């Protein structure tokens, strides 16, 4: 008896599966027009004091300048490409144009969405999707980081410098590689200590407590300048350096000296390696919303174009400005080739 009923249950379940597999019912697709900008953040989202916030800044400015609406969505940990595609497709489907994916993790899903929604203009930050209706907004992080390395090499007293990366992805290794080269070219005696917040997972961009722990460890080993390219985790490192006298932190992505959330530590933020994600996002939205001539193809934001730069906010590195500007010129002129990856 028991056996039979179990088989019946199993059969029913299979039937239910088969029934839903025939995909009855209407599709979730429905369209309308021009709702403004669709922005999809990477894990961490608005409020990470870093990469995503930088994109948010460009988005906010564009919304105001061009008087258009917009919607923001955020990827979460464990999202598959199907989840990410769903977000982008929802935006395009509901009539948001342009649609922007912030971060290279959107590459496969954005490529799929751009193929389906041919009339929508897409952009991806930090990656390349080779389609006609996609602009790929890439930056030369290694060039900017080289300059940060120059500054660190000149400012360190202990000849020990730290680098904290959010994760050991190839993008973050671009920061680390440029930083290392700039440091060694300027101060061959300086030793570089490189650590990753979370190996192999983008979670490392949202762990300020871990960032603080790592920075504390470095500081107790006499490191006196720490550059973190770690999204929200970098805030922890900045906090740690602010608590130890005579040590400096280097911010990333935005000018973290002006970051309201970090205002109480700004006297120790020596400089920031600014990556103008806000600028590239703004430019792209402008090309769609105002100029009606959407950018497409690879839009490279390098040192020459002003896509990356070193900030002088606070005046902490004004004394070494000539040397930094000299290095900058050499890179722009092609006299220095900056490595775009880090090797142990």
């Amino acid at each position: 008896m028991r056996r039979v009923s179990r088989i019946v249950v199993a059969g029913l379940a299979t039937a239910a599966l088969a029934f839903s597999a025939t995909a009855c019912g209407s599709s979730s697709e429905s369209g309308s027009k021009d709702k403004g900008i669709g922005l999809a953040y990477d894990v961490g989202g608005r409020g990470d004091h870093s990469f995503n916030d930088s994109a948010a800044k460009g988005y906010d400015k564009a919304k105001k300048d061009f008087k258009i609406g917009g919607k923001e969505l955020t990827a979460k940990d464990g999202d598959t490409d199907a989840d990410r595609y769903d977000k982008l497709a929802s935006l395009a489907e509901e009539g948001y144009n342009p649609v922007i994916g912030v971060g290279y993790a959107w590459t496969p899903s954005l490529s799929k969405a751009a193929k389906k929604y041919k009339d929508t203009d897409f952009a991806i930050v930090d990656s390349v999707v080779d389609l006609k209706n996609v602009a790929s907004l890439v930056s030369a992080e290694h060039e900017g980081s080289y300059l940060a390395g120059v500054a660190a090499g000149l400012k360190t007293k202990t000849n020990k410098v730290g680098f904290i990366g959010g994760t050991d992805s190839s993008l973050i290794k671009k920061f680390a590689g440029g930083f290392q080269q700039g440091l060694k070219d300027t101060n061959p005696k300086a030793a570089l200590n490189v650590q990753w917040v979370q190996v192999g997972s983008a979670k490392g961009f949202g762990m300020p407590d871990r960032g603080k722990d790592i920075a504390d460890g470095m500081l107790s080993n006499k490191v006196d300048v720490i550059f973190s390219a770690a999204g929200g985790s970098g805030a922890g490192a900045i906090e740690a350096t602010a608590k130890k006298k005579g040590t400096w932190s280097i911010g990333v992505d935005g000018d973290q000296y002006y970051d309201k959330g970090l205002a109480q530590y700004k006297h120790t933020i020596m400089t920031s390696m600014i990556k103008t994600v806000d600028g590239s996002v703004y430019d792209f939205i402008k090309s769609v919303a105002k100029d009606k001539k959407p950018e497409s193809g690879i839009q490279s934001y390098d040192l020459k174009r002003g896509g990356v730069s070193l900030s002088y906010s606070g005046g902490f590195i004004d004394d070494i400005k000539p040397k930094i500007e000299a290095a900058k010129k050499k890179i722009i002129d092609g006299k220095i080739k900056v490595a775009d990856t880090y090797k142990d």
Partner: protein
Amino acid sequence: MKKFDKERMLLAVAAPLLAIVSAFLLTALVLAATGKAPFEAFGVMFEYGVKSDSQVYILNKATTYYLAGLAVAIGFRMNLFNIGVDGQYRLGAFFGAAAGGAMGLPGLVQIPLIILVAMLVGAMWASIAGLLKVYRGVSEVISTIMLNSLAGILISYLLVDGRLGVLDKQTNIVATKALPESSHFFTIPAGGDLDPIWGFIVVAVLAGVGFWFLLGRTRFGFDLRAVGRSESAAEASGVNVKRMVLSSMLLSGAMAGLIGMPTVLNDTHQFTADFPVGVGFTGIAIALLGRNSPVGIALAALLWGFLERGANRLEFEGYDKEIVGVMQGVIVLCVVIAYELVRRYGLKRQQQKVGAELAAQAKAAKSDKQEVPA
């Protein structure tokens, strides 16, 4: 006797129902506390969740979750907490994808080979915890948690340009070499311009049937459940407990190796650094919700897929997307509590019934006795 069975059936249905209803009520309270109309949110989720492209999404997602639930349930059935399913799954998927990218055999040979590699790697990784438990008495909870971290570190060591990874300089993505076209698993077209349903759902169903047969219809399964109920009793009746621990750990790990296969063979066709993390932990929740039964786990996996589909939409509609995370957590808690409540209630009912029967017997016996001398 038959009536008693009916009551048991009722109790079995009552528990999950009670859990889900109370979970919805609690979530409604949370929603109300955030100042949003709760039932509208459920409306949004439901309306979106039954659309045809959502159905495809849910089935595909549930395929992965079902396998995760099964992998965890094998351990649960024998009182083993294999928290390491996540690490076993990622490592299995990684090596499966790497092996698949390196080979160029015809699909008919290569696909089973990829699956085999993934299952073997998963089983081997789980066996470390199994061996530690059997020979050194190390709790599998601790060792598997640590093995999860180690799996992550091992993957990121190997998933580097020049080792087992290939870096795409333009996109900044490091991945294993893509599988050749011939090694893509078949898909079931869903009609229209909808995405197809992953063919791996068939394998998942077969795995469920295999799970049911192995545990419910074989001596091995009986031994396994016996050990789960009471180790000492099983030992006394001649079951080799150590061997059972090891083999169920291996089995759980092999099943964990399967979890990543639908994604690798049907979707991404390669292992990237952002391959989904945490599916193994989701599997724990799903096994709990499904009460370790193959059908229950299937329903739980579908529910989970539905909730996640709804989460994407809720965010779009301006709700906090975390609300679905809260809902999932609350459901699991409610399930645990509801089952305990229903179990206690059932026990009480049983005791009352037995008590009543005994009392009736005693009374009958007494009246018999009284009749004899008369």
